[in-house]
Each structure stands twice: as structure tokens, then as C-alpha cells.
């Protein structure tokens, strides 16, 4: 497979092959023009990854496998999303949640549990899935004691 390169703002020039490319259908919400991403390891041994846009050098999202922080995160997806991603019970998949860290305040890190990125690991097709369920916080504070449920809206 031929190696290609892409210039990025945060990580400099990155080499990748076409099979590394993740296609986020419809883009990340708020960024609909950008569908192609690479998954980059943050640091060796770190649970964090970056979703780096192939189309916009400055656009990258910090993501993490939520099971690193939560043992019981297993959102039920709407059928529509599973169909879009061509997921069956057997399909290998990756689930990442987007991480927000207010500048200079790593202790205030939050995970967006209501908008996970679900990736069909076999096809590389992905989607930011919307979970309209008050049990899944948009700003889950990882440094707080787990709060299993929040009051319904």
C-alpha cells in the first residue's frame, strides 16, 4: 500500500496509508465539511488518541476509549446508526468519546458521553452518534466520583 503524507499543525508531517483513513459520515457535528481523519496515538502507553483531519491541518480532536474511565458505558445505538455503519453483532467496532480540556485546566477534563464516535473497524466508516438520553452527559467530569444517572430533563 502506497504511503502518503499530510501536514498538520499540531503533529507536523504524518505518513499514512489509504487504509489508515477513517471516514466520519457527515463529519463531526459542527464540522460537516471534514469527513476524513487519521487516528494518532497521543504518546506511547497513553489511552488518548487524536482524530486528525486529513482535509484541515489545524483540526484535531482528542479522544479516548471511555472504558478507560467508565466500566459501564455501553450505549444502545439507534438502528439507523447501526445500519449506516453497516454494523452487525459480529462487526469489530471502536468507540471513542471526544475529550474537552479547558486551556490550562487538565483537572477539569470532560468526556462527551452523549456524542460518541463509533467506528466500523473493518471498513473504517465512522459516525458521531447522538444519544438523546439524559443518562449520557455531554460534559462527564472524569475527576469526579462517578454519577450513574442524572436527573431527567
Amino acid at each position, binding site marked *: 500500500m502506497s504511503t502518503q503524507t499530510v501536514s498538520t499543525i499540531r503533529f507536523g508531517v504524518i505518513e499514512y496509508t489509504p487504509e489508515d483513513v477513517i471516514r466520519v459520515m457527515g463529519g463531526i457535528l*459542527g464540522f460537516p465539511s471534514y469527513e476524513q481523519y487519521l487516528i494518532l496515538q497521543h504518546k506511547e502507553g497513553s489511552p488518548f488518541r487524536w482524530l486528525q483531519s486529513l482535509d484541515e491541518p489545524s483540526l484535531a480532536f*482528542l479522544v479516548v476509549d471511555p472504558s478507560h474511565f467508565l466500566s459501564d458505558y455501553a450505549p444502545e445505538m439507534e438502528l*439507523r446508526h447501526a445500519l449506516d455503519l453497516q454494523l452487525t453483532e459480529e462487526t469489530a467496532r471502536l468507540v471513542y468519546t*471526544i475529550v*474537552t480540556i*479547558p486551556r490550562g485546566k487538565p483537572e477539569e477534563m470532560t468526556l*462527551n458521553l*452523549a456524542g460518541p464516535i463509533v467506528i466500523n473497524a473493518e471498513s473504517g466508516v465512522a459516525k458521531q452518534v*447522538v444519544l438523546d438520553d439524559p443518562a449520557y452527559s455531554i460534559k462527564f467530569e472524569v475527576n469526579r466520583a462517578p454519577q450513574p444517572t442524572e436527573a431527567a430533563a
Partner: protein
Amino acid sequence: MLVLTRKLNQSIIINGEIEVVVLEVRGEQVRLGIKAPKDVPVHRKEIFDQIQDENRAASEVDPGDIPE
């Protein structure tokens, strides 16, 4: 935008398969019932807006702030 006037218990049909019915009107609150096929997602718009806002904030994370 198409604007339609409906009374209590009247509904509209979208694309021949989605029905939105006015169940209750009380002051400023309107309760709607939505009958749609299982593969059609129906969400409150606020959740989309909130996730977009959160994504924008997340796109500005500084790699120097990531815990080891």
C-alpha cells in the same frame, strides 16, 4: 419554512410515513407525539446544538494539557 395551523389531536404526515400529532397545549408548552419508522432518528434540537458547541470547544484542546 412551511407553516401549518393544527388543532389539538390533529396531525401532519411527512413523506407518507412520519406522523406528528399535537397531543396537548398548555400555556407555552406543546406536547407532540411522533410516529416514525424505527430507522428514523428523532431528537430534540438542543442536544445537537449542545454537542456542536462541545465539539467546537474540544477542537481547541492544547496537547500540553493532556494528563500523563
